[in-house]
């Protein structure tokens, strides 16, 4: 009887080992190659085990104090190797495939975070959590996100708006005019809020848009991402050009923070922000 129990236990632990890269203990030394990854790591309680981040990882505050390995497109191979990471977490966009391969050729474990769209975020976090041995925390985090997203979708506000089919434009940069097209988290957020993204029919995520087209499509609401600059100044000229558009005429131009740009738990805040503006 004892033998059977022991062998059964051995088998299941073996199985558990196979299903997660890190059974039990999460890796001690994690390097993040993207700001949203850094945020997720910290949100899952892995902040202390994160030993390296990019120069652009500014949230949470503790992340700023971590050793830097370079930019998103151009991290330093050496800097990563010097940190002797157990695993390097990267994204599908931004980080390059060559860099990932190079890391692997140097026998460094990598994990590619595959979520790119809003609805992929919860599962992406779950998968990341599983791979890093923090399944429960990841589950908790992704559930939070799912609940928030559902709340927004089902709110009376949204149902009201979907019947109105508000037309929205999200401007990333005024000059040259770059907007959020289809296939972006922003676009997903707009759909989530029951509205229509007028820049949806493009094959590029962040296309250079024509000012004419804005006038023709006459959006009801315009969001402008704050970024790090004084957007009010920079966008003044553009808004003047499109002053006849309903959004500008009715004063429905809103400046929102860049939480929406990063596919991390804070993206919910970004969506909330947008929702509040619509109220």
């Amino acid at each position, binding site marked *: 009887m004892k033998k059977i129990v022991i062998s059964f236990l051995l088998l299941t632990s073996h199985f558990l080992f196979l299903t997660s890269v890190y059974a039990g203990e999460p890796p001690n030394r994690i390097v993040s190659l993207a700001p949203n990854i850094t945020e997720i790591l910290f949100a899952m309680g892995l902040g202390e085990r994160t030993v390296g981040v990019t120069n652009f990882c500014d949230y949470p505050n503790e992340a700023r104090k971590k050793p830097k390995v370079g930019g998103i497109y151009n*991290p330093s191979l050496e800097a990563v190797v010097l940190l002797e990471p157990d695993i390097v977490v990267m994204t599908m966009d931004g980080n390059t*495939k060559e860099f990932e391969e*190079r890391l692997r050729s140097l026998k460094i474990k990598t994990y590619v975070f595959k979520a790119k769209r809003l609805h992929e975020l919860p599962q992406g976090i779950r998968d990341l959590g599983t791979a890093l041995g923090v399944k429960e925390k990841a589950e908790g985090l992704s559930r939070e996100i799912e609940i928030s997203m559902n709340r927004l979708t089902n709110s009376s506000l949204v149902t009201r708006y979907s019947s109105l089919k508000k037309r929205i434009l999200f401007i990333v940069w005024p000059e040259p005019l770059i907007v959020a097209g289809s296939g972006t988290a922003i676009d997903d957020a707009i759909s989530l809020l029951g509205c229509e993204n007028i820049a949806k029919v493009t094959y590029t995520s962040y296309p250079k848009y024509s000012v004419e087209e804005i006038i023709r499509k006459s959006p009801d609401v315009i969001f402008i991402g704050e970024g790090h600059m004084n957007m009010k100044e920079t966008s003044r000229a553009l808004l003047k050009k499109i002053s006849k558009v309903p959004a500008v005429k009715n004063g429905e131009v809103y400046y929102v923070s860049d939480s929406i740009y990063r596919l991390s738990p804070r993206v919910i805040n970004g969506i909330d922000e947008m929702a509040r503006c619509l109220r």
Partner: protein
Amino acid sequence: MSKIKISMLILVLVLIVSASLFVLPKVINPFQMDTVERNILFSIRFPRVIVAFFMGMALGVSGAVLQGILRNPLADPYILGISSGASLSAVAGILSGIYFFGKFTIPLAAFIGASLVSVLVGFFGWKKGRLWPERLLLAGVGLSFLFHAILMLLMSVSADERLGRIMFWIYGDLSTADWSLIPIASVFIISGISISLSRAKALNALILGDELAHSLGFSVRKERLLLFVSISLMTAASVSLGGIIGFIGLLVPHVMRFLIGADNRFLVPASALGGGTLLCMADLIGKSILSPMEIPAGIVTAIIGSPYFLYLLGRRDVLSA
């Protein structure tokens, strides 16, 4: 006199290589390395320096030879559209996401693109049984514009994630250099340099003019074709190693000509040395100055190169030939 100058150049090269291997961006003491540092030295720094040197050599020699064949001091290997063709091909590879050959895919695409363009340029430059410098130049410039435009088109409609990658490749990124490409690329580059060196006398004669070259006993058609092929090989190999790096082919021969004269028997090897040194230096600066962020070597050469080029234009004694 020239021997002193060359010795100094070699000294500079040794210093730069040593700094790249042992000092910047972080000091590694070769006598007291731990495993991680040994790994960095041999798997990262070493191949990177070798790639930089080979690329620089290829570009320097190609510039010298091309300036001779075209009898034009402003010639640069990329004037023949080789860079645009290679970029277009590599970018198409990146965008398509096809990865048949794993990590060799992009370099291979670049190489094929560069070679195809060379063939195209050669085709347009060929008339009545031989290559004409003026035709080569015009064909190269024309094709260059065309490919560049197509490239910009592709970039403007492509998904942005890959754009960053494309930009870095286009600006000459040596950061992921490893040993795998070095053997085959070095074969092409060494071959190209050897061919150029062996035809150095013919190149000198070609500079005098087709008729004089003929009078001195050279088959103009054969020599020009051979030299053109060697340039194409070297440039294509260089592009496949680390993308587009400008100004080296243009400037290094000028500087070397000023230092040791225009005789290609000396100019060719000097341009190899000078080009290799310059690129090693540019890469060293690129990986150190904003560490840990890396600036692509191509951007560094452009920043150093263009003002220096303008300065050269002002000095009449240097713009000889």
